[in-house]
């Protein structure tokens, strides 16, 4: 084992973190105990080491007392290792002559016994003091960054993020799996609480995306595989066939009129099956790109062969229809990725007591959005499946939310969109409207005022969750909603013509696959996890991959747009620097000891090791410092910066000294 580089002069700093640490750990005792450790020339405690005065203290002591190593015992390195390394560097010594000890998350927050927690803090600091003596001067690695960005998902989040980046002069690939961008927002009628029309505010942005020279839209496309690392992601994109040549089609829609199907027979996805479309169609009038798409499941050319091919005939001049199209792939390189893959609405038939799919009177909220929409299946008039207009309507909150049998979390938007639908339905039908809610959650700018407005409009608010929905006796076509009116303390049965289920928001069905593709994490509800809920809300644990919109958790349009802007700004800050600095904790090979056995090559999860002239060579840029090869090497030829054998053994000895 190597000897420490002389006997470096060590300074130890113990942070109170307000009362976070100081209430469970006796910091003064810890400070005194550290002072007596070999090599320690100075030991201090301070209320907030991360504050400016705290950092100044370190810088001052390095100059004043000639400190050569610094140990800070405070919170998790995830939070402030960067901060203290910066301070140490500015103090004039190598920033890696520093070791952080976590006595908050690993100690004060998880223990109650003050004596034991104090002893643990002493052990951890002793370990750090012993290890830091062996630290070598290191330089962070610098790698260049590809200035292009990929945005996955073309809803309002993806659109806003893409536009922000494109306006800043960055090249953006916008990947969308549907035939048009627009996402869920394009399906909505009005937006709460201002009641501006969703299409009126969304379609101008969609048009900007289409026209922007810096944005390349890839519709009907999905990300198949991601390799590489921050600054240099290689993304393989799969393009599904549209059977229409995008560059040739001008969106005249003559082919739709010419189709041999006189009427549509296939449920229209955009109207959630409330209307029918033809095999050749455009998802909705303002679709971007303005290009038709052919559904091979419905088109008879793909099943039996179409004798007439009237669509091809009518498009003879532009010749945009191509039945031969197949799946194609593209590989693009980008420096950063923004995931804006959105949500799916809760499948209401999972709760059979509400009768969705069984009782004609029952609709989901998203279906009602289409019903009230002027460009929807009924051109905005409220016509039920049986052709009638409702005179009484029940809206049931929390369908698939706040329910441990489905999703435990609150979906955040349902109270407000239910109020909005109550207002719109009242306006259009003057029906009696009953809202069944558990708690009315209206925390947002102008939300409570909107709630008051809907109350004034005469909507009945019943505090209680509907327990049962069943057909009224006598074949009236109406259904009865049975619920406890908890404020009145009685069970009520209310017959209505129409039921609206306020379905919650769930992760996309393939969120788990997406998570794996992009190497990020999902929380308990299945939504993507941000790096830190407060301080890094749009970052992920994978550098260069950012989150925007409802893929990170249920949220409304204002929050989604704000988050998309933040994700774009983070991505911009990353790629605009031109290069990034990476942790120098890489592994390296001691050539004379390497036998060329290749054990490490297969073990490396990042494919960073290759064999050159019979010896292992580690690509520093690819190495993530996981240490697998170091442990696996049978001849002990691989070492790792910041995790040298001496450093680890001294740390272990330090912890175990008193045992």
């Amino acid at each position, binding site marked *: 084992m190597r000897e420490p580089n002389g006997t470096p002069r060590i300074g130890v700093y113990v942070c109170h973190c307000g009362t976070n640490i100081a209430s469970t750990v006796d910091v003064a005792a810890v400070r005194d105990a550290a002072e007596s450790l070999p090599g320690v020339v100075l030991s201090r405690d301070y209320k907030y080491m991360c504050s400016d005065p705290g950092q100044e203290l370190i810088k001052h002591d390095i100059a004043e007392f000639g400190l050569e190593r610094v140990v800070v015992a405070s919170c998790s390195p995830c939070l402030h290792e960067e901060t203290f390394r910066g301070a140490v560097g500015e103090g004039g010594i190598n920033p890696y002559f520093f070791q952080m000890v976590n006595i908050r998350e690993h100690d004060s927050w998880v223990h109650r016994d003050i004596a034991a927690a104090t002893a643990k803090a002493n052990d951890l600091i002793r370990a750090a003091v012993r290890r830091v003596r062996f630290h070598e001067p290191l330089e962070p690695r610098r790698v260049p960054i590809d200035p292009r960005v990929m945005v996955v998902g073309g809803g309002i989040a993806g659109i806003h993020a893409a536009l922000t980046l494109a306006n800043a002069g960055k090249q953006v690939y916008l990947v969308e799996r549907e035939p048009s961008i627009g996402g869920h927002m394009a399906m909505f009628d009005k937006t709460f609480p201002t009641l501006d029309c969703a299409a009126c505010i969304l379609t101008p942005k969609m048009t900007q995306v289409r026209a922007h020279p810096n944005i390349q839209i890839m519709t009907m496309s999905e990300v198949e595989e991601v390799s590489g690392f921050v600054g240099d992601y290689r993304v393989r994109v799969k393009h599904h066939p549209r059977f229409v040549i995008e560059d040739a089609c001008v969106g005249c829609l003559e082919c739709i009129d010419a189709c041999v199907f006189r009427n549509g027979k296939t449920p229209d996805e955009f109207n959630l099956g409330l209307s029918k479309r033809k095999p050749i169609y455009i998802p909705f009038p303002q679709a971007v790109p303005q290009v038709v798409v052919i559904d091979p499941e419905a088109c008879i050319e793909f099943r039996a062969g179409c004798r007439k091919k009237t669509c091809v005939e009518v498009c003879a001049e532009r010749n945009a229809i191509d039945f031969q199209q197949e799946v194609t792939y593209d590989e693009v390189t980008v420096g950063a990725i923004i995931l804006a893959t959105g949500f799916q609405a809760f499948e209401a038939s999972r709760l059979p*007591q509400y009768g969705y799919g069984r009782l004609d009177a029952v609709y989901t909220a998203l279906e009602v959005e289409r019903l009230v929409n002027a460009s929807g299946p009924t051109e905005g008039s409220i016509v039920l499946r049986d052709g009638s207009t409702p005179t009484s309507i029940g809206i049931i909150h*929390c369908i698939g939310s*706040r*329910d*441990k*049998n489905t999703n435990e979390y609150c979906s955040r938007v349902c109270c407000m969109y239910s109020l909005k639908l109550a207002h719109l339905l009242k306006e259009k039908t003057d029906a009696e409207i009953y809202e069944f809610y*558990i*708690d009315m959650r209206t925390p947002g700018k102008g939300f409570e005022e909107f709630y008051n407005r809907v109350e004034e409009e005469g909507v009945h608010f019943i*505090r*209680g*969750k*509907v*327990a*049962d929905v069943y057909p009224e006796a006598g074949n009236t076509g109406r259904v009865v909603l*049975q*619920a*406890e*009116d*908890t404020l009145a*303390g009685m*069970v009520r049965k209310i017959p209505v013509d129409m039921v609206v289920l306020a379905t919650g928001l769930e992760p996309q069905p393939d969120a788990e696959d997406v998570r794996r593709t992009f190497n990020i994490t999902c929380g308990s509800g299945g939504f993507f996890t941000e790096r830190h809920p407060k301080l890094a809300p749009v970052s992920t644990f994978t550098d260069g991959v950012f989150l925007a919109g409802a893929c990170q958790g249920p949220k409304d349009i204002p929050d989604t747009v704000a988050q998309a802007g933040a994700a774009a700004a983070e991505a911009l800050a990353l790629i605009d620097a031109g290069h990034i600095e990476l942790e120098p904790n890489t592994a390296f090979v001691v050539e004379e000891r390497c036998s060329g056995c290749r054990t490490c090559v297969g073990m490396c999860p990042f494919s960073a090791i290759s064999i050159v002239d019979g010896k292992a060579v580690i690509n520093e840029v690819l190495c993530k410092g996981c240490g697998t090869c170091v442990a696996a090497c049978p001849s002990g030829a691989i070492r790792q910066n910041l995790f040298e054998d001496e450093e680890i053994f001294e740390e272990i000895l330090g912890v175990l000294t008193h045992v």
Partner: protein
Amino acid sequence: MATEPMIRIEADRDPEFAAWFTGLVGEEKLRECIHCGVCSGSCPLASHMDLGPRKLMYLAREGWADDVLGSNTIWLCTSCYACTVACPQQIPVTDVMYALKRKAIEAGKAPKRHPVAVMAKQFSRMVHRRGRMSEAYLIAGLALRSGVHRYVGMLPMGVNAVRTGRISLKLDRIRRRKELTALLDRVEREREEVAAS
């Protein structure tokens, strides 16, 4: 019109009852009740209950012991489990009912000669002694202890049930009854020990 004071003071509350109740296995979930009312809404007998399951559970967890143990709600519960299935917080509502029935009997608060309470008692006594249910004797015991007049109208149906073999007049029992009795006594003793600690 007579008026009674509607205000309750904190001294009327029984925190020990609340602590006992929420301390039962499974009942700690009661603290998570969000008062959506789906239990009362789904209860087929809520229309005849004074409190209904939601109010009953709230009063129980807050320690209003007299209101809870004196309510008819616990005796009307038929254990159909509709509330338990529907509860978004997965509170075992039916188990709550059983725990409270037991407590009411122990506290002498069970309504005298109430058929549900009498039936429960008869049932457990018969199982305890004989290890098997003999319906004819169960019904007879129930009728004698809760008032014969209640069952006069059902007599023809009872006769039919006996004639078609739906109810046997034989007094059944298991072999090695003593072992079962010892087993049940042991359970009861342990339960009491747990309750005492």
